[in-house]
């Protein structure tokens, strides 16, 4: 939980407003009556910095944090009454930073200790986002055991991915707080956040420098970077392209009637309202198609079985 809150604090510090951040927290650790420090979550043993703070907006919490809701957020297939704060209102000029953490394994990540999201699910969701023009570039970061397997199945363009550990490796936690009695943060996230503390909105530090800063001996696992889908060189890609809300003014030629000041693409932004009717329709058609496919599959399996039995009989 401190991992995700640390990232939340960092992107918020770098200028991204709460309306552009979708924070999903399955635990209520901060206000749980068993928390010795109510309303607080700490990421370091000395408890210097309260990550929960006094100004936080959690968009999905508790039982709402499910694989289904996560994929719905990414792909934008939502009920029309879902409020804007729970939607990813992005378009083809938005840069999106996706950070996931939890318990995982080879090509899966657990949600709520109950269900899993697989590497294929994420890859397909990103592809759907690409086809729907919901992003310009995605930076996908994951901190879990065998994290690098999670981005191995991605196939959509303009995605940069990084993970904390390779196949067969564990991701280790970083520090224990003896008063709280648990490890407070994971090593990979800790060193990423430590690096990010040096960054401000005007920084020109590149992604390559972030990846180079991670020391394998300190985190006890081999972080992975996947940039083959990404079109820009990493040493020319600024960290603030994904972590910061940096406003830039574009001056359009005077032929245009309006001079628009556009914000540079930034994570999770921009209101593109898909007409709700269309959304509902597409969902129901998918459902009926799935149903058809299901009957088709069941008949196919029956015929396959029949063919197998026939083959055995004929052999005899």
């Amino acid at each position, binding site marked *: 939980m401190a991992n995700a809150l640390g990232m939340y604090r960092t992107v918020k510090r770098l200028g991204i407003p709460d309306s552009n951040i979708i924070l999903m927290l399955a635990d*209520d650790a*901060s*206000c*749980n*009556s068993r928390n010795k*420090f*109510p*309303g*607080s979550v700490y990421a370091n043993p000395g408890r210097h910095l*309260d990550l*929960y*703070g*006094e*100004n*936080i*907006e*959690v*968009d999905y*919490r*508790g*039982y*709402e944090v499910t694989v289904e809701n996560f994929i719905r957020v990414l792909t934008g297939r939502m*009920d029309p*009454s*879902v*409020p*804007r*704060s*729970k939607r990813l209102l992005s378009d083809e000029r938005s840069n999106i930073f996706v950070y996931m953490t939890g318990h995982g394994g080879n090509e899966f990540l657990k*949600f*709520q*200790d*109950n*269900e899993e999201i697989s590497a294929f699910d994420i890859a397909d969701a990103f592809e759907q986002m690409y086809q729907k023009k919901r992003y310009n570039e995605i930076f996908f970061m994951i901190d879990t055991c065998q994290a690098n397997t999670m981005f191995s199945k991605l196939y959509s363009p303009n995605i940069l991915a990084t993970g904390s550990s390779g196949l067969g490796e564990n991701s280790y936690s970083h520090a224990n707080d003896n008063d709280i009695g648990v490890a407070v943060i994971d090593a990979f996230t800790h060193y990423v956040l430590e690096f990010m503390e040096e960054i401000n909105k005007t920084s020109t530090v590149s992604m390559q420098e972030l990846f180079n800063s991670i020391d394998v001996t300190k985190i006890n696992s081999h972080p992975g970077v996947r940039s083959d889908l990404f079109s820009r060189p990493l040493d020319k890609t600024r960290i603030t392209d994904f972590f910061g809300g940096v406003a830039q003014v574009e001056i359009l030629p005077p032929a245009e009637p309006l001079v628009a000041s556009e914000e540079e693409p930034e994570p999770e932004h921009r209101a593109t309202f898909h007409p709700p009717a269309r959304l509902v329709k597409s969902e129901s058609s998918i459902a009926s198609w799935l149903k058809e496919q299901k009957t088709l599959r069941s008949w196919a399996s029956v015929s396959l079985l029949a063919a197998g039995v026939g083959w*055995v009989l004929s*052999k*005899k």
Partner: protein
Amino acid sequence: MLLGYRLIWPATLLHLCLAVLGSQSELFTEKLTINSLQDGKVASKFTFTALLKGASPRDPKTLDGEDESQHYTLFPLALGQILREYGVTELHLTLNAGNWNYDRWGYPGESGVGTGAELWAWMGDGASKTVDERWKGLRNALAGLFCASLGSLDELRTTSPAESFVPEGSLPRWDAAHQIRHASLPSEHVCTENLTPFLKLLPCKSLSGIASLLNPHRLFDADWHGMGVHVLWHEGEGVEVRLTFQAVSDPLRSLLGKKQDWSFQSLYDRTIHRACPVAQSSEVVVSLPTNAVYAIQPEPHAVERNLAVYDVNTIDKPLNIRLIWPDPFTYPLEYHSDSTPFSVKRMLRGSSQAWGQLSVVITNHRSTEVKTLYLETMPWLVQFYLHTIQTRVNGVIKDGVFSNLTYIPSVPHSRPTTFQVLLTLPPKSTVEITMEVTKAFLRYTEHPPDAQRGWDLPPAVFTPVEVMENGSSSPPLMGRIYSSTLLVDLATPDFSMPYNVIIFTCSVVAFSFGSIFNLLTRKFAVLRFPPDNAQ
């Protein structure tokens, strides 16, 4: 030039503030009430009221058309938009953590103290969208605004108990009748992410005035805490939004001296440095102890009937009110509860996962007969057997306690039970109601991720009423009384069972198919070796 601009800005702002105060179309008042309780705890209640004068709720018939523009200066726009979008006349949302102890703490300042989230709204009918559609939109919109899981207050939890939840304001006389929708989610917790949007609705945020005391780290440390949003319409006055926050803090927990002393600094870890300039009135009311020696600092502006009143707008800042007792606190041997007519205990008995017994024990402390409405809005997870109801008065089975029973049975997987009855509690007696219940057997996918924890059941609601001669019940004497919530343990499957079944079936199929296939495709032949080779 630059200096000139610097001076102009505050002047303009001041002018704007004065204009707001002068216009009087919107009124904002804030109030903090602090009570010392019998058991040494301190109850504080923050109330922020914004009144939109002359406004009226939106008639649902006009929902399809263009709405009038909304220009508010003090009234929260984010909430106003939701109210007008869904044509809501009256709305009450509370998010609480903990059990309100009526016997020790008395009746709360705000009546909605049920554990978890509770939302109820009165909406006019007659729109092209039904009340249920708008109710769904409303709870989703509020879920987004207050960062709570109110979207889960779905039709599995929605009831329409009109008698127990009478409107607190007035309802406009439109052609179509008003309808109520009520739902509660006892497992919902309240935390900083709920307080953040709450503070954003206030005109001064948490920067000045009484709201600057709302420090999440101390409030969520309190023994009981809860926030509420109430929207009502007063005929002839306008639409009122009342935002409340209540907390029960324990000064005895932190101090080593075992004294009941408190101050703003000790309760909230903050003091008031500035007054909220747009607040019409901003006052702190401290109820003073009646039969003890105490000292209060600073000197209050007025003392009326053992209530000390401070006007935050005029008093010297920083304001840190302190109440000091010279003597250490001694716990009373017996608690007296004058403000609540009866106390309630509710239990779910039985160790079985298939059935149980619901038991409600109500003790009437008064020497007069008390009539009260008893309401259960139970999700279908627990189903009642009404024929097994038994009422005992002081341990003796007795009829005549029940009257005016309303019962809407639950429908599995879709509708909760609504069970409402008028109880007549004899003077100075204990009434026990028992009823057999069955516990539902859920589908595999209906279980929450932490299924073994059990399901929280909403509190029962008691509304004391006075019954008229003609049999109709008058508006309640006082607010509702909530019982504690219950936790029901339903039969949970072994969640790894499907995997075991798949693995086991696959093994059986592979084994049988393999061996049958082997048997069928192999050609068996008897080989005879020549006898001389055998040697």
